[in-house]
């Protein structure tokens, strides 16, 4: 393993999370400590073990395809930080 297990700022950027320098300094050793603990899992022989993604034995079952009433737009839009004309307003996405 390299001297630095995780590039905190790079990973935070992947997660669309801005961090202050203080946060990077705080999280770097904490996360490395956690990852060092997690590395103990490497000791286990898992060659013929199936993964468990989910404890429920039936997963991904679909409900009947029957149209149902949806929430009214006014209720849905109510929580949007910025909205108008029945839509959520966001900064310009496509550059002219």
């Amino acid at each position, binding site marked *: 393993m390299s001297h630095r297990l995780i590039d905190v700022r790079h990973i935070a950027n992947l997660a669309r*999370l*801005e961090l202050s320098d203080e*946060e990077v300094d705080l999280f770097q050793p904490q996360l490395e400590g956690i990852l060092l*603990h997690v590395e103990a899992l490497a000791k286990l022989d*898992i060659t013929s*073990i199936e993964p468990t993604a989910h404890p429920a034995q039936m997963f*991904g079952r679909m409900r009947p395809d029957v149209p149902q009433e949806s929430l009214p737009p006014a209720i849905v839009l109510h929580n949007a930080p910025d909205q108008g004309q029945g839509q959520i307003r966001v900064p310009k996405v496509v550059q002219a």
Partner: protein
Amino acid sequence: MTWSLLTKAQNPRASGNLQKERTDLGIKHSGIKSNYSPMSITRLRQQLRSGETTPAAILHQLEGEIAARDPLTGAYLSRDLKVALAEAESIDLTLPLGGIPVAIKDNINVRGQACTCGSRFLVENYQSPYDATVVGKLRAAGAIPFGRMNLDEFAMGSSTENSALQITRNPHDSARIPGGSSGGSAAAVADLTAIAALGSDTGGSIRQPASHCGVVGLKPTYGRVSRYGLVAFASSLDQIGPITRTVEDAALILQAIAGFDLADSTSLDVPVPDYLATLNEGVRGLRLGVPKEYFGDGIDTGVRKNVEAAIQKLADQGAEIVAITLPHTEHAVATYYVIAPAEASSNLSRFDGIRYGHRAANPADIPDLYKKSREQGFGPEVKRRIILGTYVLSSGYYDAYYGRAQKVRTLIRQDFEEAFKKVDAIVSPVAPTPARRIGTFANDPLHEYLSDIFTLSANLAGIPGISVPCGLTDYDGGINLPVGLQILGPHLGEALLLRIAQTATISR
């Protein structure tokens, strides 16, 4: 004491007796000679049906208790007495929970109410557009949702210290944590400011605060209770359950909220048994497993003594005690802290500042809006877990961390499957120590994670678990701190757990 909190006029709690009553709570509420409890749902239901009290009187009384003690305890984030009183007017008292107020952890949606998740991200402008399925089911059973309970931000933590909104203190010792993440729910039930509460349990978040506060907490089998309307933390681990003062009350709440739900594709389409019917059948002939890995060196002597005494009592009642092994226990923390953050990082991507919650002012562009909104809205523990989860899912590390953890999860699940071939249920401590002092693990997340060791495995395996008070002990300068006994059962073994828990509490 035989005072009844909720008769029409009296307020029995003169403030001078508070500390004594609180101390008594851990011992007396389940009773040594009987299961009578003055504030149990069962008792209140009798009073409601006989006309001794009314739903409105109960709500007014609770409001008084909250005003008297919650400024110190800090369990409630919000409550709306007017709305609850309006709902109380049309309650059908013949329903199973008719007229009973139930406090709701603030990560479960109640239509028209705030749902902060203990986060700055949602505190500004979020109002639930719909009822979670559990809330709808509580209403259908006649209960009145009343009060929103503090929690670790997005249920990430085991102390409620990670709430961005306020501190919650343990009613048994205000210098100590109530546990978490359902710390507000457990503290209020212990503080007699709530009759019963809903919590959510992703790695122990119902059972551990119940243990620390001296109350009953049940995490049902994964899929037994619908998660629709619970703000998702780790979707393959989360489960909603009751926190109550008696085992019977936990059975009553579970009865109301359990069952199949088309809106949750992981809910189990299996009939719900009558949990009360078998509650008093005792433990004679049951085989109870004691896993050696749960009684190692790291456990406090007072916790060990009380838990061993509780197991002995169950043996005295006719249970057979069997030594068992859950050999992969030592890997549970590492496994959990890969899987839970991985799922959390994915689930929390919805908090982007677009559709609801916090949006940063004056962003340069869309990515800047996401990054700044999340930077400003999330607290440190949530950020740590998002980063950790993103890392273990990232290209080049996925197999080494997430893929491997999923396979170790299988080994942990198989440990339980093997154990349940030999025993009916497993008994253990809930946590290695009683409630620690507030601030103990500040900036030491790994040590906080390690204290979850006895509760995480049940979530990884999807099995049910219950915490019941089993005594009091002194710890780290604190006196008479509650200790919980954890009982784990096979899939859909809730009726069995409740029955064992009932025996454990009435035979004390």
